């Protein structure tokens, strides 16, 4: 087993290649999932803001002053 892991002296190259493969694809897999979650959060925030715009000036509104 150890011998086959060592890859006849080329283990460093082969295993680095395997690691590169997995790391790059792992990032590539996680990125869209995180992005989807963030997008949904943004949309919730936007909806909340639009609600806020419909009922404007809840705090600190002394408009009739002008």
């Amino acid at each position, binding site marked *: 087993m150890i011998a086959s892991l060592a890859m006849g002296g080329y283990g460093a*190259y082969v295993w680095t290649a395997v690691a*590169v493969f997995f790391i*790059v694809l792992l990032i590539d897999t996680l990125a869209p999932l995180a992005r*989807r979650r963030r*997008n*949904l959060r943004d*949309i*919730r925030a936007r909806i909340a803001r639009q609600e806020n715009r419909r009922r404007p000036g809840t705090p600190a509104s002394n408009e009739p002053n002008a």
Partner: protein
Amino acid sequence: MANWVPLWLHRLGSPPTFYRFAGSVYPWALGLAILLGGVALYGGLFVAPADYQQGDAYRIIFIHVPSAWMSLFIYGVMTLAAFIGLVWRIKLAETVAMESAPVGAAFTAITLATGSLWGKPMWGTWWTWDARLTSELVLLFIYLGIVGLYHAFEDRRQGARAACFLVLVGAVNVPIVHFSVNWWNTLHQGATIRLLGPSHIAASMVWPLLTMMAATKLYYIASLFARVRADLIASEGGKAWVRDLALGPAGGGKA
């Protein structure tokens, strides 16, 4: 061209439909990709015999070659999607083209890295400026240029259209990568592996390679679908179905 193309695409192209469709395909594609990839790597790294010339270093082939194929295959898909998107103004096609680019860039990067890792023991250098290596590097730049252009725009749709344009312009590079070994005399080896005809290498080397090829294709489908789903949510943000999704009990959860 026939107008069944837009018709058919419009049906599948309805964003909520596609969103659900992609959501149901995604776990299967990803799961199968992982399974096949594991089998292929096991076969390639432990079962297949060492090469009589290269020793065990050749085992990088099981990553390098499928990734290299994907880097070109994905660009082909993008070109097609970009063309459809520009001609028929189909949003989903634009999205597919744009969301393929990062996956293609990832595979191109893997090809470059594993090629280097292979080149050091075989050629004694990490890098040479031979035609195939360089054209592959140029391919990476093109992918990055597309991603960069897409994100440089405030308006996503506009960015997608501009970047689709660039996809078509950059497509000339793909045949150069593929045929460079025939056109110029290079260090990089030519097509030694024939899928159909008699190949120079043992069957125990060929099957892991083919399995890995299938695994990367499936992975591409999975990653593309996940990306398109994320993109649809952003670009359809104002539509009711996305609002329902966002405000839904599990915040979207599984589709």
